[in-house]
């Protein structure tokens, strides 16, 4: 089911507007009005995107009660990074073994004979 946190994060990141919002927030806190500015979007439309980002844990509300600024919470992004990193390590090791196996094959060594 796509309700685990990784899926929520990925779904939240799937939209270019939401990625742009995150990019903006990586520079510092911003109010909803500030966030809406570059997109020519209505306030409710931006709020909707923010809601998705908040649910994925990527965005949190700041303490200023009047302006309710939003800020980036990068932890879910790190989870994706770590997840992808495991595959990078896996493929690196796989290529190492492939190289060794290929050399054995090309020398016609036992265990390296072609079927």
């Amino acid at each position: 089911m796509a309700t685990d946190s990784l899926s929520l994060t990925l779904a939240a990141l799937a939209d270019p507007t939401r990625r742009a919002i995150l990019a903006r927030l990586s520079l510092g806190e911003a109010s909803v009005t500030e966030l809406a500015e570059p997109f020519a979007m209505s306030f409710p439309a931006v709020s909707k995107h923010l809601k998705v980002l908040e649910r994925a844990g990527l965005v949190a509300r700041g303490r200023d009660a009047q302006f309710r600024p939003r800020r980036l919470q990068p932890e879910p992004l790190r989870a994706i990074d770590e997840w992808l990193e495991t595959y990078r390590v896996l493929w690196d090791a796989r290529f190492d073994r492939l190289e060794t196996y290929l050399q054995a094959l090309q020398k016609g060594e036992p265990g390296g004979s072609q079927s």
Partner: protein
Amino acid sequence: MTDQSIDLPSDDPVIIITRTFDAPRTLMFKLFTDPYHLVRFWGPEGSTYPVCEMDVRPGGEWRLTMRFADGSEYPTNSIYLEIAPPERIVYRDAPLDRSQWQDALPPAEMVTTILFEDIGGRTRIIANVRANSIGARDMAVKMGFGQMVAASYARLEAYLGTL
């Protein structure tokens, strides 16, 4: 305090691993599509593969059981999305038991594309691992989770409720 040190993914969550091998690409392609060869390098270290059945064609299944020295076994199942010898292999994760999904599949957690490029008799292999999408179409991500719609509207509603 805002954490500003994070690298935001500018596009899809994807990793690309590239290596060049001193062998023709027809051979390299064969190593990835013939169980006899694949089990000899697929890894991880210390693992063996008592099961490796590859139905190498689009829609075909690839069943793989990994066994470690302590006797623990990890069966996995993949579905080939594209087979273009000797250039390209694309596959995705699939449930071990497909009966509950009938003809449809749940959204892919991961799509792997392996490209074989000929560079003057040598072969550059590019492994592209993409999280939660269905290959070039990216539907699963862009639509929330496209394929599940066919499987269950109830699950769709439950999922939408979480957004």
